[in-house]
């Protein structure tokens, strides 16, 4: 059972950051949907609701999404439905129900680096950076790998490109977590293949991307790229699927995603 001893609504990010680092048991509140599942004993809960971090802003070169933006806002954003072949709304639409997506935040999802996340995989296939209060702006790829210590995610920034993208996932029940998810993007001939829920967190299949860029994209080559992606990434087993099954469907989903982007 989650317990909270104190609660604050800071007026600035700096204030929030200072409080966060006062005590190892102080914590930032995202949407709380996942936080509450554990038995965390929070000393001071820090609510970022007063920091105006709920936005999806389209700028000249980039789209910025504030940490307190909900998944439902991503799903229904006219900007995001058009951009990047709509893979961001596509990736979040199967996360729980509307009432959950009205709570779950981008900040909570990205910062927690959940392995099962569909959004993180989609974001990773795009040119995405995260902006952390202390550490500043780093690529999502680096962030997913390394994480951060006692920092605050302020927003994510996605560089606007003319890329084509596709998001594929495999679920058994539609309301379950994905057994595997795949996002592929193509910007000119720059290919990014991201695979998540392996069940570990999303990663880019770099060799496969390179191979594909250098190929003529025949059906055989696309299949080969999918095989390379499956070989270069690590897969594991959990109750939703075995390592072997994930490997099998990785090839299929990567192939299908590439086909859709071509």
């Amino acid at each position, binding site marked *: 059972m989650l317990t909270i001893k104190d609660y604050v609504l800071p007026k600035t990010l700096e204030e929030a950051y200072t409080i966060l680092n006062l005590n190892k048991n102080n914590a930032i509140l995202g949407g709380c949907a996942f936080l509450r599942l554990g038995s965390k004993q929070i000393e001071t809960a820090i609510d970022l609701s007063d920091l105006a971090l709920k936005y999806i802003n389209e700028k000249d070169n980039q789209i910025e999404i504030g940490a307190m933006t909900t998944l439902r806002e991503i799903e229904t954003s006219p900007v995001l439905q058009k951009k990047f072949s709509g893979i961001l709304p596509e990736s979040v639409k199967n996360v729980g129900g509307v009432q959950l997506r009205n709570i779950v935040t981008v900040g909570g999802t990205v910062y927690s680096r959940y392995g099962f996340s569909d959004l993180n995989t989609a974001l990773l296939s795009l040119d995405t950076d995260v902006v952390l209060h202390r550490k500043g702006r780093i690529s999502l790829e680096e962030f997913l790998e390394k994480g951060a210590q006692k920092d605050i995610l302020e927003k994510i920034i996605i560089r606007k490109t003319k890329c084509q993208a596709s998001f594929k996932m495999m679920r058994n029940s539609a309301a379950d977590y994905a057994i595997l998810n795949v996002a592929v993007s193509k910007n000119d001939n720059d290919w990014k293949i991201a695979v998540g829920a392996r069940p570990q967190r999303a990663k880019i299949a770099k060799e496969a991307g390179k191979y594909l860029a250098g190929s003529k994209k025949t059906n055989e080559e696309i299949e080969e790229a999918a095989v390379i992606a499956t070989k270069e990434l690590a897969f594991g087993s959990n109750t939703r699927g075995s390592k072997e*099954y994930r490997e099998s*469907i990785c090839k299929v989903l990567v192939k299908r995603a590439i086909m859709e982007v071509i």
Partner: protein
Amino acid sequence: MYRVYGAAKGCQKILGGSVKMRVINKAIPKIDGIDIATGKAVYTDDLSSNNALVIKILRSPHAFARIKSINTERAQEVPGVECILTYKDVPGVRFTLAGQSYPEPSPYDRLILDEYVRYVGDEVAIIAAVDEKTALKALKLVEVEYEVFEPVLDFEEAEGHPSIVHTEDDIHLNMDIGMNREKNIASSYKLEIGDVDSELAESDIIVEKTYYTQAQAHAMMETYRAFSYLDHNGRLTIVSSTQIPFHVRGIVARALQIPQSKVRVIKPRIGGGFGGKQTASVEIFPALVTLKTGKPAKIIYDRKETFSSTTSRHAMRITVKLGADKEGNIKAIDMQALSDTGAYGEHAPTVFSVAGHKTLPLYNKAQAVRYMGNVVYTNKMPAGALRGYGVTQGTFALESAINELAAELNMDPVVIREKNIIKEGETNPILEGSKDGNPAALESCALESCIKKGKELIRWHEKYPRKVISDTKVRGVGMAITMQGSGIGGIDTASAVIKLNNDGFYTLLLGSTDMGTGSDTILAQIAAEVLDTTMDRIIIHAADTDISPYDTGSYASSTAYVTGNAVIKAAEDMRKKIVGSGAKLLGLSEKEVEFDGEFIKNINGKQKLSLNELAQRLISGEGKNQLIGMGTFGGETSPPPFVAGFAEVEVDKETGKIDLINYVAVVDCGTVINPNLARIQAEGGLVQGIGLAMYEDVQYSERGKMNSNTFMQYKIPCRKDIGKITVSFESSYEPTGPFGAKSIGEVVINTPAPAIANAVYNAVGVNVRKLPITPEKVLKGIMELISE
């Protein structure tokens, strides 16, 4: 006008549908529908007292252990803790939590708290405190030292396992259930008709396959809960979300070693049961706390406890061996089964036997049939009653085997059924009500027309066996049939009481428990039909053991049939009394008057008395005769309802993903008392069956901890998972049923698993014999076919 006295039922049979019924077979809205939909406070926790002590249970972290020491001193010191109870504080008399008529076949193999804990989640201590936080705080301070044993986790290795789940020698059995405790066998059973081995030896074709059905969770939306208090007479009152108030009274009384007269059980609205609430999983805890402290107490299980510390469906392994001739005439059926009852034996022998009893009669042309095997104890959560009650398990195995036999013979699965199924008027010695040498006859059965109708609705002739949709997608169709029962013949009974009130309206007192099914509504319909009145003049009261007439409870598909018949008797009794006392007040003989629902009048209608006036005069000093109609019913037989189920699936050959496109179920439940409510019962049961077929799986870790104890891990179907469902009714007329009705509640859950498995086979040639049918299993099968 309703014609009374038994003959009425026969008349309707003869006249077919020509008797016009006013209320029966009408889509009457559920009487409680609007209020429960719009959030009225009518469920157990809505009614509980804010002053009640809150109970939390300390549970075993080990699958099998003995409590070496337990220290509650520090926990007791937490301010606000009222009492902490351990195995040292409870009566040492064993009992069962299974809600069954006495003498229960389930073994009395548990104590309220025991020195031994037999599964992860088994109760270790009961903590009652002023609020939840305090109780949880104290719970963490109870110090327990365990002697941990090697648990029995794999039910296929339970028999003869070095660990014995029940070492105690004071297990009480009401009857011989074939228990062999030292071998972890809770019950063993054998049924054989004819000489199976020699019939098999003479068969042209033999198909032998082994099937596994998984444990399934009930997953009713309202978790288990109850509260208790002492009334002004010092009697223990328990308010519980239960299907079995009268059994709860008996179970609590035995467990606490107090007379039943000291216990009262009240059932408010129930937020779903599905058989889960046929086991008294929680009531004893608040009852004990209230007795110990004198204070009101309540317990509300969270979802995790509901998943991991109550009951689930018995997981089973069933090997089916079929013998047939080349034309597909089935000669012999042999079913060898093994059932996992977990740590305690709730419903162990009965779920087991029913898996054979309510599947084998479908194929009554077979010369010899056998059903046998063991139910074993393991160190997992106990199994219990769940909609279908073994028939679901048996149906998956038998129907899958029949489908595999059809494939072996290169025969349409529909055709093999047409050749072999039981028909109306035929007999079978396994049907309930059979006596030695005198097999019971099937008095109503529209199974044949169910199959025919289902075939048309799914468009079998166009779709069977498969259609290629694209390079990667194939669609296939499959089918299965099933039967169930209507109540438990010769054992379960129900009574109904009808009161005529001052103003000429009636109160129908029932002990049955509408858990959302709409049974209160259809029972009121039955009473209204007999009494020639309208629904608004029938008030239902159910259930309170101090007030309600006895009813075994709503389980075993009994309420429409068993309680329904009791209501007919009570209403007919009331009619008779209305006519009798009306005639008296009019100064006429009974033969000279009739009752049309509003008036008691003589034949020419010149002398009449309104029901309203009759009621007023009867309760006054003039009449001194409040009318009460009364009826008790218990069936000698258990007329089976039937379903033919047809599935259409689309399989992704590259990922194994199965999309259920269409499901058609054609149901014979006799007369459909309320078409809308029956349809929803069918649709709901089908979706629960689809869950069993494709998504649901109670899973344990290597150490016996349940992994699937949340709705995140245990997936019941959501509304995107079920495709299009079509339900249709093919009515038969059951002469022993109320207005020709049979049951519907359970039978509808049985066909999806075998029909979907068959559809997957017809699509891609893969037989998945272990439920659930997941994409991973299908893809594995496809890969194996390719590599062959």
